[in-house]
């Protein structure tokens, strides 16, 4: 793609200042989102995927949070350099948010119609009657049956899946170009999750929106992503088209994640635990759980993202030359010896 991306994140670092030290939740993350594509950020809890998405529109509490470095270019403008008013007008009108728990996102004492109208009226110059009409249209758009009669119902009169549809309607209220959805289906049953994923796919095709979709579920990623960003301990491990990530995963972490999904033969857990966020290890963040780690992985900085053929990049020294592959496991120790001997 040669056109300028809609969103471009460069070397973003979001840290939290806590009593236990500085939590480096996001520690140098870069990726692009083009118009009309769905980018999935996938990672385990604590990988920094949510903080990354919340840093885009500065939804993180500041303080203790702080964007210490890096920039977020939206349509060519750096959001991190904007005033608070500037960010606020972007939020909602250009970038919509959908959160995990629809229960918490809706106010129980107002009708859903009121809450959608509120979102419309705060960003658009329309009359109340027009806003009501728009609210009904939005509910129809997100697949609420008999929308004209449901618009005056209260959130408790909707099921979980229907509430999530209402939240999506609110996010769409101002015709955003980009939707950021943070685990929007995690709280839902599989059958309802499938419906909501269908809705996202449909919306994107109809409205040509860009979607950033955050999830820990690789099954969901395979369902809806065009491109994937795999995060681990505040860093991007691998990024690429969904075909590359699933059919040709490069990073040992991505491979391990794909192998530990229950329901397939040979369930392989990833040994060890996430590294400390206040005092991350030297070298690659994944090295102490990685079967392919050699001495070089344990020193210095996280390796840069090496470009691989096609739409694919990986942060692993085994791919330093832009091609290559992971070594055979039995060769790993010998590589250390060879390098040690050469010194």
């Amino acid at each position, binding site marked *: 793609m040669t056109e300028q991306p809609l969103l471009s994140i460069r070397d973003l670092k979001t840290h939290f200042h806590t009593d236990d030290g500085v939590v480096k939740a996001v520690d140098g993350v870069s990726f692009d989102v083009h118009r009309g594509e769905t980018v999935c950020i996938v990672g*385990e*809890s604590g990988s920094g995927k949510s903080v990354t998405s919340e840093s885009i529109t500065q939804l993180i509490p500041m303080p203790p949070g702080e964007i210490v470095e890096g920039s977020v270019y939206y349509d060519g403008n750096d959001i991190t350099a904007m005033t608070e008013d500037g960010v606020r007008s972007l939020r909602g009108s250009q970038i919509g948010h959908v959160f995990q728990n629809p229960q918490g996102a809706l106010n129980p004492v107002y009708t859903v119609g009121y809450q959608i109208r509120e979102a419309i009226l705060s960003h658009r110059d329309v009359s109340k*009657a027009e806003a*009501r*009409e728009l609210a*009904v249209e939005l509910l129809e758009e997100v697949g609420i*049956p*008999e*929308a*004209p*009669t449901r618009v*005056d119902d209260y959130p408790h009169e909707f*099921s*979980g*899946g*229907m509430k999530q549809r209402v939240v999506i309607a609110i996010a769409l209220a101002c015709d955003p170009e980009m939707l950021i959805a943070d685990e929007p289906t995690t709280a839902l*049953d*599989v*059958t*309802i*999750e*499938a*419906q909501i*994923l*269908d809705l996202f*796919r449909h919306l994107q095709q109809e409205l040509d929106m860009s979607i950033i979709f955050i999830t*820990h*579920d*690789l*099954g*969901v*990623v*395979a*369902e809806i992503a065009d491109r994937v960003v795999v995060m681990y301990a505040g860093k991007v491990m691998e990024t690429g088209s*969904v*075909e590359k990530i*699933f*059919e040709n995963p490069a990073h040992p972490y991505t491979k*391990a*994640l*794909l192998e*530990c*999904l*229950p*329901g*397939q033969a040979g*369930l*392989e*857990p*990833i040994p060890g*635990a*996430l590294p400390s966020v206040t005092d991350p290890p030297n070298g690659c963040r994944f090295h102490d759980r990685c079967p392919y780690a050699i001495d070089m992985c344990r020193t210095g900085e996280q390796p840069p993202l090496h470009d691989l053929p096609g739409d694919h990049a990986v942060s692993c020294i085994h791919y330093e030359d832009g091609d290559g592959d992971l070594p055979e496991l039995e060769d790993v120790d010998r590589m250390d010896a060879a390098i040690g001997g050469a010194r």
Partner: protein
Amino acid sequence: MSTGRPLLEVENLKKHFPMTRGMMKEEIGRVRAVDGIDFTVHQGETFGLVGESGCGKSTAARTILRLEDPTAGSVYFDGDDITEYDKAALKRYRRNAQMIFQDPDSSFDPRMSVGESLEEPLIVHGMGDRSLRRHLVKDLLERVGLQAEDINRYPHEFSGGQKQRIGLARALILNPSMLVADEPVSALDVSVQAEILNLLDEFQDAFGLSIILISHNLGVVRHICDRVGVMYMGELVEVGRTEELFTDPKHPYTRSLISAIPSTDLDDRSQRVRLSGSVPDPADPPRGCRFHTRCPEVIPPDHYDLEQETWRSLMDFKQRVEERHLTIEQLYVMLYPDEDEEEMDVPESLPQEEVTSVLSGEYGLESGIGDRKAAEVFEATSGHLAAGDLETAIELLESEYRTVCQQETPPVTDEGPDHRSACHLRSEGAAPLSGESESVATD
């Protein structure tokens, strides 16, 4: 595996929760959380219970452990009916049947060390020797992959996966013969889930444990269960051996559930059965087959020649009418959505053609119904609705849009060894109901 009597036999188990009103606690209805389920678990076997939230799987588990008293039915454990147990017998039973919970954070007292938490069951069951207790706890901690020194640490010092290991250790400390695991891995990250599942597998082999695993995650169930029961609205709709059930599901609900799992196979994108709607109110379950309100394969009457999808839409329509939802006020709002509510002046009747077209749009029937007779009934019903005559509309649909799925409870069909389902499509001689085929009463 023993060939004799199963370790656990659940027979027609029911657990209803009464809904009461007012000071006198007058019963106004019941939530039928578990409504007559039968299954068995053999020694050394893992039995999975799956279903959407609210289907009654957790209540079933709690009732089997007598954490809830059953409303009806029996649970035989090693030949004894546990529903008859008195307090002392129950205490003995609970020693043999243990539970692990979903959230490892809230299942430990934060002020008790791991050792204290794990020793507690031993003290309750009368093991007085402290050094022996400590020895047992240390030994078990090592077996679940932790260290003996962890005995003096507190829950907050452990990660979620480690806490779940401790939870497993606590459940196993009394050497039970059965373990009930309620969503044991759903609060954990995928990389950690695998560890706990492998550990469960390991212990099952080592101790000949019987496990009842409750989960909404079919991947997890497929991985470790020998047999699986699929629950919907308090009933078991299908029970079978895991591989058979996953590769050749007989019940449409099982098929939909399996199809809804997001798959990592990119070729599978959007080739799946979609369920419409959500689970109905368990206090007022649908007649006949409880799944008929969402079933993508609901059986049409044989005198109609309809696409399956069209019949599904007509059944959705019928249901809305039956719920007395499509009143003249509702239809008025649907016809004129822009009108201000306060100034609404709803007439006695609405133009029939417009109502028909709005309803066709709402139920996705714009491209026609296909069958002439079914279409006539739809139009006639719209006519009654437009005239505000809800009762006649309900009667007409009841006599014309008939399905065995709504009329009769599906019988249990034997699908071969260890496999049964409850669906009219599977039962022999389940000829679709031939509805009264007199001419449609049109105005």
